[in-house]
């Protein structure tokens, strides 16, 4: 996958982090890598925070992206994700839970785990906290390391880029192969 992390097909991957830590940028990078191969992907957007312009600028072919807006209803988002992971053919189903992560019973987490294994779909869950516990094969935490500003004069007039790092919280397959730090250009 190159620079950013890659969700594992047939497994659950979680990205957690605080606001402005880079988790959504990681999500877009994963979506871009999938759709650039010509495979369809789905994004279940709980709080309707997805920005199509950011996605297009990140290189995502929006025609291959199914965007499901859930109107801040977390139970609806979980049901939508459950439906999508049972549809074979999607390479990646991303579930963006936003800032308030609901409680997920262990049975439901295992249900999701077995569903993605059966259909070989990569389920990527993005949120403030972890959701699926031991059902996730990979869980990483994103942290912000720095911000760079730019502008013609002494006073910066625009945000240049942000540097983030990742920390592996759980991995079934050993240490990940991507570099921990990433630059994200504004």
């Amino acid at each position: 996958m190159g620079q950013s992390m890659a969700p594992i097909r047939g497994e659950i991957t979680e990205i957690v982090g605080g606001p402005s830590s880079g988790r959504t940028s990681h999500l877009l990078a994963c979506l871009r890598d999938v759709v650039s191969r010509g495979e369809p992907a789905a994004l279940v957007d709980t709080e309707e925070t997805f920005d199509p312009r950011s996605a297009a600028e990140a290189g995502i072919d929006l025609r291959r992206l199914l965007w499901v807006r859930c109107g801040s209803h977390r139970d609806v988002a979980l049901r939508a994700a459950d439906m999508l992971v049972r549809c074979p053919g999607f390479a990646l189903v991303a579930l963006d839970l936003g800032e308030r992560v609901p409680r997920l019973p262990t049975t439901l987490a295992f249900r999701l785990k077995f569903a993605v294994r059966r259909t070989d779909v990569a389920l990527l869950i993005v949120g403030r906290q972890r959701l699926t516990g031991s059902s996730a094969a990979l869980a990483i935490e994103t942290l912000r390391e720095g911000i760079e500003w730019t502008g013609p004069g002494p006073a910066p007039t625009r945000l240049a880029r942000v540097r983030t790092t990742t920390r592996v919280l759980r991995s079934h397959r050993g240490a990940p192969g991507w570099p921990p730090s990433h630059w994200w250009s504004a």
Partner: protein
Amino acid sequence: MSRFGCVLVEHFDAAAVERCEPALRERPLAILNPSVDGPKVGREGAPTAKINGAPTASINMIVEANAAAREQTVRPGMTETEARARCPMLVTRPWVEEYAVSARHALLEAALAVSPRIEDGGAGLAYVDTVGLERLIGDPASIGRRLVYQVRAVGLTARVGLAASRTAARMAAANGSGAVTVIPPGRERAMLARVSLAALDLTPDLAATLGGWGVRTLGELAALPREGLAMRLGPAGLRAHDLALGLDRDPFRPWTPPPFWEEAQGLEWEIDSLGVLAGVLETVLERLCRRLGAVALAADALEIRLGLASGGHHARDVSLAYPMSEVKPMLTLLVLDLEAHPPPAAVTRVAISAHPIRTQAGQGGLWQPPAPAPRDLVTVLARLAALVGADNLGSPVLVDSHRSDAFTMLAFSPPSGPESLDRRGRRGGHSPRQDSPALDDPARLPALPQHPTGERPQRLALRRIRPARRAEIETVGEQPVRVDALHVIACAGPWRASGEWWDTRAWARDEWDVVLGDGALCRLARDRLTGHWYLDGFYD
């Protein structure tokens, strides 16, 4: 060489009902005359009439009976009472026009699967032009067996006759000993000679005249002198003579299927539950799909029309994302549509129309990435639409505008082939956030600059707040220093943008990127027309 085939379904009105209720095939069944109450008359119900305001029971007449009922000497023309006296186990059903029409079309479509030239010969009767089918199917007996098979596929049982003329083929079908009867060329007259005159369906006057002459069989009619018949009976006599000889004088009128194929089901009880209605829908769809499958067609649109107990109708159009002839996905789509748009009253009748089209089989490319099967995709999209609403589902498309959150939604329909986006996306060297046409084509969006270390930076995502939240901002000069209760640690801006100044929807704003005291990196926007500050979203 046989030139025509005749497909005959005996006791057709009863067969049409048995097609809708297969459990009745083994039971004695009689069809009652159509009543004033229509198809809502129940199994035991009797239509009533009013004389001088007082309701009186009308007499139900048998219009058709199946073979099991005829074994019990039940015949058309009897009263229901007489028929029940002869056959206590008799099951009766009212005559429903939709059943007969659907079965008639199903029979013709099944014949159409064998030959492109068929003629509608009336209820339960179809003529098939078999010229050229020998090379495709085989000898006439094989063609007959193919016809029987196709008709059975749509839920009917037929007898087939093949001969040089339609009349001879019909006589062979009606009087043959097996399911398929073939009259060899030149043997028509000999085969027809023993057939009763009643098989010709002559007018009562003509039949009475011929009966008075002692003519009982077609052979006897064929032996009469033609000139004498012409003088005494006119054109009707000549036509009867031709038929007795097995000659067709009428032109062949090819039948073309209607643009929509319909199957209907009358209900004996009112249905007010979608779960129960789904069972009826499945039955109707099964019949419809069998008709489609018999001629290798698929439907690309469905129309459902529900008759309501209130007297009205509830109609819905369901366009299918891809042509299909499978019951399960069709049923799922119909049920989901009815869940979203339920009928306003209890349902008493169901009719489903399908627009048939011929599908072209395609094969995926070797390097084509896997994608959801159309059947699975359309089903999951319908379920999601029922869950979140159709407006909240689809692929986003950027609108050609400088407004930062301008987009629209289109139905999700991913292109089939892969495209190299990276190659297109790396052209040019625009700076970030440069005012550029915002189109859906990533090639026209600004490319990312290369970092001095050689590492290619990726795009920072913005998490939008929809709608943008009004914020209380404290400023020094133009610069924000406090957002709500949080100090601003660092900020950059303003980034000025405006648009649609020629319209009533004119907008103008200054955008600031700020780091707040809690570490959040967010985008603020000041509306220059109103002076209000908004929190657009968070960089993440």
